[in-house]
């Protein structure tokens, strides 16, 4: 009853092609967006913003990036951590070399640098596919981390070998550096994610997204109908790395504050890949759901015994947390192999018929 599009007639092509063609969806997303911008900064504690919501937003952006490449274009990549590192180190170099540059511009530029590096490492994808490509992108991961570890120039020859986010303002509000409030960081991270999620959503609905999916589903057929593999695959790598690069820059500037190369090791690549798989391949919503699941579930499980007043040793708690987390991953993949996004889609179908299913 509540969720029915009956009576909503589309009279223009624009209305038919809208991102959210159903009015209820529009309202829901609109309300969620407003709530996301207003409620947490007003109500959430510093812990919730800094340790829970900001990493969620950062990883959601990285997951969208990888989803464009792996989900839509079908190119398996294990280089996400490396591309995120490129973004982070470029952002550090740019922010320190040009202190007058607006931090948003710094993020965009470091995304572009990551995109260039992604293009370069995407070249093997023209000849190899599937697991072989995953191995080739693994090379990117290891090479990039080695490079940042080895060459002192990337860390401005700091004796500690780490990069640190300097204090930077947006519209007169401090958003990075240790003195920035968690609220300011959160709002910036949210704004970036919202803009780029919208861009991604439109990308995948357009010509480019369709050619990505054509390549993914059958590359030879795609080539025959006129999709150029070189351009399409490289664009997938470039755009995906752009997203990952910005996510990497955010990881250091908005979340960690200071980082070494270990923050971008191979585990990051796997983590983001798991987000994409659990959330749902080729779904923007899935990237958010996957990031939420991977980032929030462990934190939720860690805090749960405290909230219900259970006293147990932290080691036992961690072991239980790992077991439950692993179990949940398997559970969700068995219940819905196409990820959480598919579950949501099924729920929507059922909602349309509720309360009179046939």
């Amino acid at each position, binding site marked *: 009853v509540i969720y029915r599009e009956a009576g909503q007639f589309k009279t223009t092509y624009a209305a038919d092609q809208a991102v959210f063609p159903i009015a209820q969806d529009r309202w829901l997303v609109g309300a969620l967006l407003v709530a996301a911008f207003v409620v947490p900064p007003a109500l959430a504690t510093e812990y919730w913003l800094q340790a829970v919501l900001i990493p969620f937003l950062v990883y959601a952006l990285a997951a969208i990036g990888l989803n464009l490449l792996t989900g839509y274009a079908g190119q398996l990549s294990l280089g996400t951590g490396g591309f995120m590192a490129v973004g982070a180190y470029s952002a550090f170099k740019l922010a320190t070399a040009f202190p007058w540059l607006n931090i948003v511009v710094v993020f965009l530029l470091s995304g572009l640098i990551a995109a260039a590096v992604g293009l370069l490492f995407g070249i093997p994808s023209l000849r190899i596919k599937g697991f072989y490509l995953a191995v080739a992108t693994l090379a990117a991961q290891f090479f990039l981390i080695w490079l940042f570890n080895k060459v002192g120039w990337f860390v401005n020859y*700091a004796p500690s070998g*780490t990069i640190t*986010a300097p204090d930077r303002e947006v519209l007169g509000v401090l958003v990075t550096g240790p003195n920035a409030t968690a609220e300011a960081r959160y709002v910036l991270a949210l704004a970036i994610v919202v803009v780029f999620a919208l861009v991604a959503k439109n990308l995948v609905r357009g010509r480019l997204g369709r050619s990505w999916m054509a390549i993914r589903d059958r590359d030879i057929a795609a080539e025959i109908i006129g999709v150029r593999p070189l351009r399409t695959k490289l664009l997938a790598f470039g755009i995906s790395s752009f997203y990952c690069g910005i996510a990497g820059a955010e990881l250091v500037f908005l979340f960690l*504050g*200071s*980082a070494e190369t270990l923050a971008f090791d191979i585990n990051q690549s796997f983590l983001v890949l798991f987000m994409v798989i659990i959330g749902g391949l080729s779904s923007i919503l899935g990237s958010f759901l996957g990031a939420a699941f991977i980032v929030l579930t462990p934190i939720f499980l860690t805090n749960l015994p405290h909230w219900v007043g259970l006293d147990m040793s*932290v080691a036992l708690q961690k072991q239980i947390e790992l077991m439950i987390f692993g179990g949940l991953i398997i559970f969700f993949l068995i219940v819905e192999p196409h990820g959480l996004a598919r579950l949501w889609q099924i729920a929507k179908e059922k909602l349309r018929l509720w309360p009179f299913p046939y």
Partner: protein
Amino acid sequence: VVRAGGRGGAAASSNDTPTDERTREREDIMRVRALLIGLVSVALVGGAWAGAALAQEKSVFIPLLVYRTGPYAPNGIPSANGFNDYFNLLNARDGGIEGVKVVFEECEMQYDTKQGVECYERLKNKHGGAVMVNPFSTGITYQLIPKAPVDKVVVHSSGYGMTASADGRWFPWVFNFPMTYWSQASAFVKYVAAQEGGFDKLKGKKIAHIYHNSPYGKEANPTLETLARTHAFELTLLAVDHPGQEQKSTWLQIRRLNPDWIYISGWGVMNQVAIKEAAAIGFKMDHVVGNWWTGTETDVIPAGDGAKGYKSMTFHAAGSGFKVHQDILKHVYDKGKGAYSDRGKVGEVLYNRTVIGAMLNTEAIRTAIKKFGEKPPTKEQVRWGFENLNLTEQRLEELGFKGMMRPLRVTCENHEGNGLALVQQWDGKTWKPVSDWIEPIREVVRPKLEEAAVVEGKKLGYTMRDCAKEK
């Protein structure tokens, strides 16, 4: 078995007084309520009841970031237990620090930086707010250094962390006494020189540094490079990538190079593998010296007899033969509150190190309480206490640490203190000290350290403070 550490703050409030009984009753009611609300809507409850129950007592809160699980757990467990046992000892034997209870709570972070940040954010405002933190990971220390002056939480990275932060003029909130990686590396070179018969004998000698390829592992490199230039020894730097299970190529290079001495900066599984490899290629074990994070029981035992003769740096003695251990066994273990289930493990290298760390923390807080007389002390006062810590030989004896470590004095300029290093050797069963206390080559280390402090301090937008103006 309920472990004291897991119960965290609750462990501190166990005296049987009427007030406490009431507190407990109230706690129970609150617990039931929390349980109910928790079942209805888990996400909304928070840890309010725990905070409310504990706030009535005079206490200081010290969060503990620990890693009892994950790949670094063999190192993390003794470290965490040392803190637990010493804080419990203080609360049981002395009733806290000058009557102020030590409240502590553990948070498991698996030696992972992101989880460490989550832990820090979760704990820092609990129990009336953390006054200080022991990150117990160089990576997390780097994260916390920028936050320290903002949150007004003292970061004490005892024998690890960022060397440059030893310059207190740039980093007022960060302390790394009793010693830094750079001082340690210089003490190692001094030890080698003594073994070879003088600094002039170092000329042409070959020293290899095998290090964990991370900012931590690389810490010793600049000092070793400087000393290699001044004393004309040949230095080879060999990086091992995280986590360090694969070192075949490194040790192949060692065989080809055949160095006179090997210095290792490792952590976790890298140490065991390195020591096994050294034994496997038949290297003279008494010429292999680990830094103080590369010389624990768990590092040498897997190599069996092959590890005999292996040496490592340290800044305190190992073993459980000191008075503080008797006190811990008597006041903590005999009451069933010990962190270990096996009391034979009391006195392990890392355990002793964190018992000392806990002692340094609490003595610094005591310094603050004695000076300002406020109970509990404020965060600024605690910082002052760290900066003016003066542990005399007599005080160490009173505390039961006589012979275990050296007197220590921290100043506004020097947050590293005047710690001395020691070389210990593994005889197949225990670690035995084999050298005198070694003074680091401070005239080399300190100027470099001050240079680095300028770079690191400016990176964070700090300005140098004038120590002459401090009270």
